[in-house]
């Protein structure tokens, strides 16, 4: 037995009744929609990879050009990730004994606006209303997304203030929900005021991208890691001091700098801004590594028990990806190192590591571990869950490996005067095929988890004799 409901150190124990209703509502709304977007993004990513390898396919269709479909795929994936992470964040607050769903209409309006923002965004991208330079959200989509989020702000803030003592996990959730409205308001005002022009425009967009990734998405991912680790080992509270220390380093370094875990520096910005970015990146990596080291020490004695836990492989993969990201980021924080791999497929590798290796994997881990408790239902098949893990791990692993190799080849060949640029593209092309193959695995995985989720909602229970599902509680 890993965790007992009577253990006083476990502060997130779901209290029956209201919280169960709350979680059922969150699962049915944010959970279902995030998985729906995951399926849609899987399709878009497949089409995008076909377009990369066979550029002549559908080249008469202006709305299906590679540049358009690439961004549409990214935005639909963000639709899945954002709603999935919001679902987890809300659930942590609900499980801390605070009810979010005080107003059904407010939640309904917000949820509708968020989803409409992604639909409108995809239409805008495919029809050519791309908006500002490198911003992932097209103009109307950004406004709708912000409106959707702003509707929840009074409720979220009020609820967070009511929690007497924020645990490290809830601190990260709070960081995300407290700063996001300000970042969104800043970028909308700059955009509407016509300030996003020239070099300043590129810089301000990089600042927003940093805030969206490192101060909105990533804290929710880290909160999930801490929440799950606490469920695996209630003794995590003993290390609260180091986790709080890491939280403040993470928060201050991110608020005072402007480069997320995957962002590359803009060479044309003044030197003082680049120095701030370097220092901020180093502190960001440092805090991530403190968190992971604390968790490792805590969970190490329980490893033999945890091997039986169905969600644990996802958890291990996610935390390993985050650790790798932290190490790579501390190396790439230095301009001299970064310059070598900048603009190569290293950026794509880091993106894959963050989105698929960490955020998606921890999302899956949380779903597989937590939903049976929250909904008091049982997963239909543990072998399907294991297959999903291997599909996800394999697709992410081979993609990252292929992109690292491609990055090395690009770096070496593009800096060699005898080798023409085009021949390097031809050499790395097979490695990009691997990425396409992994998209097929990812899509199959998305189908599997959606199928399992559907069965869970339909309350289909397998024959207990055949079920291999391990319940740690």
């Amino acid at each position: 037995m890993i965790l007992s409901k009577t253990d006083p150190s476990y502060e997130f124990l779901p209290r029956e009744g209201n919280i169960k209703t709350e979680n059922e509502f969150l699962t049915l709304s944010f959970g279902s929609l995030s998985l729906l977007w995951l399926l849609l993004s899987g399709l878009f990513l497949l089409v995008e990879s076909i377009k990369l390898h066979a550029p002549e396919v559908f080249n008469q269709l202006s709305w299906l050009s590679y540049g358009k479909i690439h961004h549409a795929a990214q935005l639909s994936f963000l639709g899945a990730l954002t709603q999935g992470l919001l679902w987890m964040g809300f659930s942590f607050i609900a499980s801390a004994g605070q009810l979010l769903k005080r107003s059904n209409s407010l939640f309904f309006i917000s949820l509708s606006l968020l989803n409409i923002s992604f639909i409108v965004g995809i239409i805008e991208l495919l029809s050519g209303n791309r908006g500002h330079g490198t911003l992932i959200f097209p103009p109307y989509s950004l406004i709708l997304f912000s409106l959707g989020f702003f509707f929840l702000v009074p409720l979220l803030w009020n609820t967070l203030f009511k929690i007497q003592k924020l645990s490290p996990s809830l601190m990260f959730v709070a960081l995300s929900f407290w700063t996001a409205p300000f970042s969104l308001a800043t970028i909308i005002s700059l955009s509407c005021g016509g300030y996003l022009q020239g070099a300043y425009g590129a810089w301000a967009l990089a600042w927003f991208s940093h805030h969206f990734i490192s101060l909105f998405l990533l804290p929710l991912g880290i909160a999930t890691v801490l929440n799950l680790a606490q469920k695996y080992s209630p003794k995590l509270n003993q290390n609260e001091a180091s986790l709080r220390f890491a939280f403040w380093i993470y928060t201050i370094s991110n608020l005072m700098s402007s480069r997320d875990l995957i962002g590359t520096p803009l060479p044309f910005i003044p030197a003082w801004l680049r120095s701030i970015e370097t220092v901020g990146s180093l502190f960001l990596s440092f805090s991530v590594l403190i968190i992971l080291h604390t968790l490792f020490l805590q969970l190490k004695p329980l490893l033999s028990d945890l091997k039986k836990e169905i969600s644990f492989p996802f958890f291990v993969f996610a935390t390993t990806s985050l650790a790798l990201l932290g190490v790579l980021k501390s190396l790439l924080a230095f301009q001299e190192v970064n310059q070598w791999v900048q603009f190569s497929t290293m950026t794509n590798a880091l993106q894959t590591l963050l989105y698929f290796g960490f955020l998606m994997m921890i999302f899956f881990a949380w779903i597989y571990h937590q939903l049976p408790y929250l909904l008091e239902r049982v997963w239909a098949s543990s072998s399907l869950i294991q297959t999903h893990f291997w599909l996800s791990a394999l697709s992410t692993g081979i993609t990252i490996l292929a992109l690292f190799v491609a990055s090395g080849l690009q770096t070496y060949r593009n800096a060699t005067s005898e080798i023409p640029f085009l021949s390097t593209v031809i050499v790395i092309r097979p490695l990009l095929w691997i990425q396409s193959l992994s998209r097929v695995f990812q899509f199959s995985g998305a189908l599997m988890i959606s199928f399992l989720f559907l069965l869970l909602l339909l309350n289909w229970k397998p024959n207990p004799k055949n079920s291999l599902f391990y319940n740690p509680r």
Partner: protein
Amino acid sequence: MKNNSIPSFVTIIFFFLLGWLLLIWTPYLQFGSQKLHEDQESGDLVPRPLSGLAIRGSKIYEENGCATCHTQQARNSNEDKVQGYSKRASVARDFFYQPATFAGMNRFGPDLTNVGSRKKSAEWHHQHLFAPQTLSPGSIMPSYQFLYEKRKIVGQHSGEALKLPSSVLIEEGYEVIPSEQAKALVAYLLSLDQSYSLPESPLIEE
């Protein structure tokens, strides 16, 4: 139990505002105070303003997501020197007139900072957009045929018709004419030229 949510909120918002002043407000003042520079040789003010057609072209560039595969930022790195992207590094002032800066993050295609001075022919750009592989065999650049119109030849050939190699199959009696969008995009590509000197980033002579 001591309440830590309000103090945490206040601390986070304090650092957010401090970061905002440092990273949004201060750069705005610094970037906003930039002025044009008078070129010693030509006496022109640089960077040069974009024509109306080129500004429209930048919108086409944006809409089609060209920045997904192309960067527009030259560095003082070995790679950029070897590939001949620029004789100097791009600086903030270079983007003075750019309605949007397409810095980019990937180089699946070459950097375009100076494509206007590297490839000066509009014809070359049109052929490259219509049938990229005819000029860059093995390239993964998609064709932008939807920016062109296939038109039946009535009387004489149009002066705007693309001169395509025989490997590009066009039906007998038809010609390919660039649309207004294609012309704008090419005007924008030709405007990408940082081959002037700036005090903060002078040209490096070979």
